[in-house]
């Protein structure tokens, strides 16, 4: 069930999903920065700030969190305590990690279910600044949880082996270039 034995089509789907996902959260962070920075500038130069910008950027941060969680999982960025796992024989390690993976998927599955109810509950209330239904920003919980489960399914084999994704080569610090003693 490992990533290397995926049929090719599935591998392409996997790569496309990661690419689109990275693009979305990256753009969101960029927009978030522009909004907050623009507010700083308008406040000090023009004497007013835009309440809607503050609200949108806060929502964007929550969207980044839940839409980026699956990517963080793939890159091994979700911190865990591996002291016990490090001492297990490999077959037991795989079994344990499969079990933990199933637990995570059930949890996020429940989050999709309750998240949808949360959205429908929020549909009748309005946000402070934008005056849109609260259910719209709330959408990220079921959507993000569903995306997380999808990432988990596609990544399951590598998850059991702790074979994390490296999106790009480690940044070269430039330090080693003729500076060391």
């Amino acid at each position, binding site marked *: 069930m490992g990533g290397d034995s995926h049929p090719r089509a599935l591998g392409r789907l996997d790569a496309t999903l990661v690419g689109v996902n990275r693009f979305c959260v990256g753009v*969101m962070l960029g927009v978030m920065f522009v909004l907050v920075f623009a507010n700083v500038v308008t406040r000090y130069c023009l004497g007013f700030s835009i309440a809607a910008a503050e609200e949108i950027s806060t929502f964007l*941060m929550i969207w*980044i969190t839940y839409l980026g969680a699956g990517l*963080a999982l793939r890159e091994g960025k979700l911190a865990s305590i*591996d002291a016990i796992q490090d001492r297990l024989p490999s077959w037991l390690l795989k079994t344990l990690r499969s079990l*933990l993976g199933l637990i995570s998927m059930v949890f996020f599955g429940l989050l999709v279910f309750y998240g949808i109810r949360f959205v429908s509950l929020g549909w009748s209330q309005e946000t402070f600044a934008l005056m849109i239904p609260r259910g719209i920003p*709330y959408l990220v919980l079921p959507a993000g949880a569903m995306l997380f489960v999808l990432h988990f399914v596609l990544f399951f084999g590598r998850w059991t082996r702790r074979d994390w994704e490296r999106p790009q080569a480690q940044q070269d*610090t430039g330090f080693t270039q003729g500076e060391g003693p």
Partner: protein
Amino acid sequence: MSLVLFAVFFLTLAAGLPVAICMGVAGMVAVLVDGRFPALVVPQHLFNGISSFPLMAVPFFVLAADLMTACGLTASLMRFANNLVGHIRGGLGHVNVLVSMLFAGVSGSALADAAGPGAIEMSMMEKAGYDKAYAGALSATTATIGPIIPPSILMVVYAISDARVTVAGLFLAGVVPGVLLGAALSATNHWVSAKHGYLFRASRPSLGELGRSFLGAVPALGLPFIIMAGILAGIFTPTEAAAVAVAYSLFLGLLVTRNLRWSQLFDVLAQSSTTSAAVLLIVSMASIFSWLLTLLQVPQSIASGISAFTNSPAVVMVLVALVVFICGMVIDTLPALIILVPVLGPLVDKFHLDPLYFAMTVVLNLTIGLVTPPVGPVLFVISTVGGIRYEKLVRAVLPLLMAEVAVLVLVIAFPPISTTLPRLLGFTR
């Protein structure tokens, strides 16, 4: 309900489920088993827990740090540190300490700092001829300086979970303990290097070379200065300061050093957003967990339990130190902080402690706990990344750990170490 909450949390945590998911699963199971509340409270807390403008400082600090690295500013900082102290005894060890202080890891996770910059410093020292285990031990211990010296994501999150302190106050409170920590590690490094004969002298750079590398590092050194000055002068909120730091790094990278290409910018954004997602997911999941803790009156029972035991603030601080230390030995700083602050916070009021002094003790304790054997999560990371046998690493870390504990004892024994600077500048409540 509390039994279910703690049993699920500690079992999954020990089994190696990511900490964020542990808190969410434990919270969800506890709510479902208890049945008094609709399960809808779970998504509600997950969302509202991170629906916070001040918290936005976190992704911006992460982005600023990633941009600095992409612009090559981190490298120029390292070059300057190396020119400054690289030629003295145990030079690269001092560089390791100095870089950790200057570029105080803004990631908010000592684990991430150990795996990233820590691993780079370690391999540099190893290449230069230092004992691998010692290089790893030093990188592990210097990774704990980051969260103490401002700007620090840990402090931002602390101030959000505890209304008794402000971000500016916490930033200032960390300066002196952070410098003390750096000095203590440097002194220990000097002693160890003398004992093992780590000489490897690089040629002393000429004054001109030192000056040039200083000029190269000025833009990077200016970043924390801008952040601190802006916050302290009341010009920016911490979130705005972090956004300004991003703008400053962008300006430098695109227009001054021109090391940052537009095509790279997107990769940096994507990288920073996944790192931020990992940090914020912990904050989000912790909100359901800490809501349940409050509901179960865990903080109150701990506070009253301690006050039944003693009424001396000094004894309380020692008890707190022990509890926090043990937590730090197993959990990463950020989740431990989010769980502990609401639990221990009531003690501040009950025993009339200075909240900034209390906060510094907690943060310092947690970070030092991370490199304390037998568990010490940072030690595990370093031993994995560097391929060092855990037992060897533990032996090498002991003298450095003693130095850190000495600083901790000083900070606990003398509150003015943490409270003087914020008080002088008027950032106490």
